[in-house]
């Protein structure tokens, strides 16, 4: 394999990994902070891309549609947290049932509104060109997605380590009772974090639309991949989600080249290997067993 081919594969893996990172980041923090296994997280991806599609159809253009979709998905997340999630904190199995139920409901509502035929979100015209990278062209849009992913990671890292909000979240992941003792309004923090997580998934959906297409069912596909990332990276850390996403994105992509017969199980093989060595994921906190 030539270096330029390898570079192409790596770029592809990174672009895919970054999309997953955006979902996994929210999932991981919600997981770590509120101890919620949010099986409805893929829903935010799904709703995000379909809402953006509608705005694009209405002629708003890609970027306003992106913003509107994120706002709407964040609002959806906020309502979901306030009305439903709040009732099941600490009850893991009820969360499973509740979020599974919600993902059923939303997937079917999306199908009801937009129909079952696959649709596509066009690449924004400003980025609809290809860059020459040795062997051939590489879509500029994917480079953009990689860039956004890295920016987001840097922003989240900064927030986690350098700001008060980050300190609150870190403290909360380690010990939830402590937050209350510090006089912090946990309810507001939880709602806000849930909304941010939803917004990130919505962002991923809109950005992923032109690459992965849109259809009902992509929500559960993407959910499984991002759950794998969260677990590989370790619950409750953005850093873990980032490294995990890159690892999974790259292995999934390169696996297709080097182990074509393993494509179906590639990411699961990686996950089992990681968990056997580090039962709490790469960056997970908590006692090693």
């Amino acid at each position, binding site marked *: 394999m030539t270096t330029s081919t390898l570079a192409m594969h790596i770029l592809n893996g990174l*672009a895919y990994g970054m999309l997953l990172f955006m979902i996994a980041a929210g999932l991981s923090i919600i997981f770590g902070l509120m101890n919620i296994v949010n099986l409805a997280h893929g829903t935010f991806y799904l709703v995000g891309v379909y809402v953006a599609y509608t705005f694009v159809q209405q002629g708003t253009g890609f970027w306003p549609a992106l913003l509107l979709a994120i706002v709407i998905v964040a609002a959806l997340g906020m309502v979901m947290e306030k009305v439903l999630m709040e009732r099941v904190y600490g009850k893991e199995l009820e969360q499973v049932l509740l979020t599974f139920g919600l993902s059923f409901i939303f997937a079917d509502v999306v199908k009801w509104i937009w129909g079952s*035929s696959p649709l596509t979100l066009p690449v924004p015209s400003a980025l609809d060109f290809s860059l020459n990278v040795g062997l051939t062209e590489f879509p500029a849009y994917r480079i953009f997605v990689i860039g956004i992913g890295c920016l987001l990671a840097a922003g989240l890292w900064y927030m986690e380590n350098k700001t008060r909000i980050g300190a609150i979240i870190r403290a909360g992941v380690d010990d939830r009772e402590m937050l209350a003792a510090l006089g912090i309004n946990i309810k507001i923090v939880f709602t806000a974090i849930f909304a941010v997580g939803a917004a990130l998934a919505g962002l991923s959906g809109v950005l992923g639309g032109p690459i992965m297409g849109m259809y009902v069912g992509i929500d559960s596909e993407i959910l499984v991949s991002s759950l794998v990332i969260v677990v590989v990276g370790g619950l409750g850390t953005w850093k873990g989600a980032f490294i995990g996403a890159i690892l999974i994105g790259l292995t999934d992509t390169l696996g297709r080249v080097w182990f074509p017969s393993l494509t179906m199980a590639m990411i699961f093989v990686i996950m089992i290997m990681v968990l056997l060595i580090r039962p709490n994921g790469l960056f997970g906190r908590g006692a090693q067993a």
Partner: protein
Amino acid sequence: MKETRKTRWTRAWLCAILALTLLLAACGSQTASESAGGSGGTNGSAGASEPIKIGAILSFSGNFAPLSESIKEGMELYFEQTGNKIGDRQVSIVYEDDEANPQVALRKYRQLVESEQVDLLVGPISSSVVYALRDVIEKDKIVLIDANAAANDISWDKKSDYIYRVSISNWQDGMPAAEYIAQNIGKKAYVLAPDYPAGHETIEAFEDAFKKAGGEIVKEAWPKLGNNDYATYLTDILQTKPDLVFSFLSGTDAIRFVQQYEQFGVKGKIPLTGTEEFLDPLVTEPTGQAAEGIIGATMYTSSLDNPVNQKFVEAFTQKYNKTPNYFNVQGYDSAQVIAKAIEQAGSTNADDLINVLKEIKFSSPRGELAMDPKTHNLALDMYLVKNVWKDGKIVQEVLGIAAKGLKIPETPPTPSK
């Protein structure tokens, strides 16, 4: 106290939402649609006035939903045109969702055959379902009109007297364009199809014919079914530098592949050819211009020039306000074959029906078609078709005929090495 009031409110809200949704869902549902009409029902006259009940097993949830809905549209159009009647008997269709899962399909099958007591069946989408139903159908002796499932073996080892396919087999889908491609596009082909039985069967048929026509397969790629990103394969294609790519993909897989084919700059460099899935509005409408230039063979396109098709397209466009796809035609023809078989047999008795079905001939939007009694599969005219960009959308231009009266072989062909 405030808390309880709030809770009560939320509950009231949720109940209201639930009630509303249930109501809407009930209204929106179209199961058991056209039920027994007025036709009296003095039970003396040997069932001639009893309604005919058709059970449809399709996959309305999951990735096959668009296919299932298209088939349903086609069937409903046909029966609307006949005034919901076969002969003088009313028709009612009961639709069931098999979730493309054989286990669910078997449950639904029993429900249709035993509880609903349907006279005959139509469906399914998925090959796994048709295989699973095959044995129980043999036992229960009930006719199934196969409206989509393309597994070759249902015409060979798993052939049943009670199953007749009005769609296409994987073999017929894969091979007809091969000779044209080898002679006019290039000799070195890169093939790509999902890694599951339908993919293997279709590609095998293509490769066989392609090699016979002097072509060579330079590489095979087998992405998983439901692959989210084809970038890796496209990079590999660019590196391999074949004369052309031949692919079999469907639904979202096909859409993603075609779009990414353009995004990675492969379109224009290496010609893309493929099965009829790539030449159908279900794929070419979402992809838009990216699908321009794809060449392949298909059994149907809305631009076919025959009187039956012209009437069909007109009626279809009027009813649904869109261009028909080939699944619509499969649905339409399934309904047509059912009606014709029952009329000719004069009853819904399975043994009478299969005598007719074995040699049934009918006028399809695809042309004049006949069942091949040896394989229970249609002899199809396959048209060479190219996607062209015209007035802001992709349309299919017919280049010629790839194969006339193409039948699936009677036994599995031995692949040439």
